[in-house]
């Protein structure tokens, strides 16, 4: 050993500085010094109504009903993506019709936006999960904007919404749809859109920026929210159960391919209507299953669960949705005791 060239006290200080710096770097990474950081928890909490979240339920799209069925691929999608789900054939589907509300007991006529969660499983062991909604454009163009919208909706300040719209003028296209588009009297008559852009990779390795939609086979029948309210608070799930019991319900899955320069990173901007669209197959909803002990209850329809042959694009929303959906899943599974279950052991 050499001569001591530093006092023990000095050495201990060096150790304290090293450990302190490491701990501070860790705390910084964890966001403890940046309370303004938009975290999954903040995003999920922003969705909660004043009375608090529906414990044990999804933090958004809390009301819904499960279904099972199949995706009948016609093979046309194989030109766009190598995913097995596009090879001609039938693949099992688990899904959920839902309402975009944080209140699991919201009356149907009080919720403007409807959604459809989907999980298609293929024999190669891969899954395609998607969560679509019925507006033609998303409400905002950025994740921060979505958070600010939730804050403005909850704000007691009368000018909060006006200020929000001034900062996020893209919101007006969504408002126009919400005010003027007709309501339908059935989930079976709704068109559901990915809105977010994804990238399909074909067999030659070429990439295609795409969005997709489910186009209903059933003819839409308009209904006013007042008339829908008269049919009862849970009319939509009762109606779809009756309708599917009578006959399977179908939607065509249509994939739209972006032209160069189309706004792939902004789901609040529709692409021009003349973009090439490929019909890749049919979603067949064969059975409605009660949500409470249904197979969709414990599934997170995380839109970033994609088979090989698909990936996320420069659209920032799927990543944020994945982070928020996971947080929502972590919360609701930890609150399972608060969920009104009727039985156990019916998981897929």
């Amino acid at each position, binding site marked *: 050993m050499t001569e001591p060239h530093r006092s023990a006290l000095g050495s201990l200080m060096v150790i304290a500085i090293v*450990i302190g710096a490491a701990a501070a*770097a*860790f705390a910084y990474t964890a966001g403890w010094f940046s309370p303004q950081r938009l975290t999954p928890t903040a995003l999920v909490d922003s969705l909660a109504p004043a009375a608090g979240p529906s414990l044990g339920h999804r933090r958004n799209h809390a009301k819904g009903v499960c279904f099972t069925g199949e995706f009948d691929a016609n093979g046309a999608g194989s030109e766009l993506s190598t995913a097995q789900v596009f090879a001609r054939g039938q693949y099992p589907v688990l899904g959920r019709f839902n309402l975009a509300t944080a209140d699991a007991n919201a009356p149907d006529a009080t919720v403007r936006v409807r959604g459809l969660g989907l999980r298609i499983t293929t024999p190669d062991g891969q899954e395609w999960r998607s969560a679509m909604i019925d507006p033609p454009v998303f409400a905002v163009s950025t994740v921060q904007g979505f958070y600010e919208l939730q804050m403005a909706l909850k704000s007691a300040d009368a000018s909060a919404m006006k200020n929000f719209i001034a900062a996020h003028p893209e919101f007006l296209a969504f408002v126009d749809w919400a005010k003027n588009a007709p309501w339908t009297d059935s989930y079976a008559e709704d068109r559901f859109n990915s809105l977010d852009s994804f990238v399909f990779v074909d067999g030659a390795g070429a990439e295609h920026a795409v969005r997709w939609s489910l186009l209903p086979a059933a003819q839409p029948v308009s209904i006013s929210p007042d008339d829908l309210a008269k049919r009862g608070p849970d009319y939509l799930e009762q109606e779809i159960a009756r309708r599917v019991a009578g006959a399977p319900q179908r939607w065509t899955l249509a994939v739209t391919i972006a032209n160069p320069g189309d706004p792939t990173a902004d789901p609040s901007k529709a692409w021009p209507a003349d973009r090439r669209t490929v019909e890749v197959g049919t979603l067949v909803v064969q059975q409605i299953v009660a949500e409470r002990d249904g197979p969709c209850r414990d599934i997170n329809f995380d839109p970033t669960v994609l088979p090989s042959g698909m990936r996320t694009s420069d659209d920032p929303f799927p990543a944020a949705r994945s982070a928020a959906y996971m947080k929502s899943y972590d919360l609701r599974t930890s609150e399972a005791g608060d969920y009104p279950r009727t039985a156990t052991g019916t998981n897929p």
Partner: protein
Amino acid sequence: MIGVRKRFTPLQRLLHWLIAVCILAMLFIGVGMVTTVTPKFLPLIAIHKSLGVAILALAVIRLAVRLRYGAPALPADLPMPMKLAAQLSHYALYALMIGMPLLGWAMLSAAAYPVVVFGSMHLPALLPQSDGLHSLLWDAHFYLAFAFFGLVLLHVAAALFHALVRRDGVFETMASLSASTRDADTD
């Protein structure tokens, strides 16, 4: 030829430093990814899963190597409480190196998420979907990560204490770059 080794074997040192880098990256990625909603979230979580599987594999190899080759003896004059702390903390480090990836993998399984690592490698589910198990595993994975980081800090502090204050050769058993395992090159 069995003799008294003054250092860990070169393979043990390689594994130690490789895993050390991986674990530090893992812990920082972990706390970073769960607090962001930016597009970084997806690559971070993908790296987190792949790195977890890599650490699991490396740690199992390391444990086998450790059981085969052992460790250099601690200095005879090391006080008993420090010896005990050294032993217990190393048991805990091995348990966490192997346990944390398994907890994470099981947690994802219990949530019915597909577990995909290294781009396209699908791992089988360790458990069926279960809300109760998912919650339990999520809590364990989350809180043990902070315990793991605390233990890593303690480990670094102890290593530096040996290197700078006691100067007893313990630090050099792992830190030396020399291929030799015999001569204690304490300076």
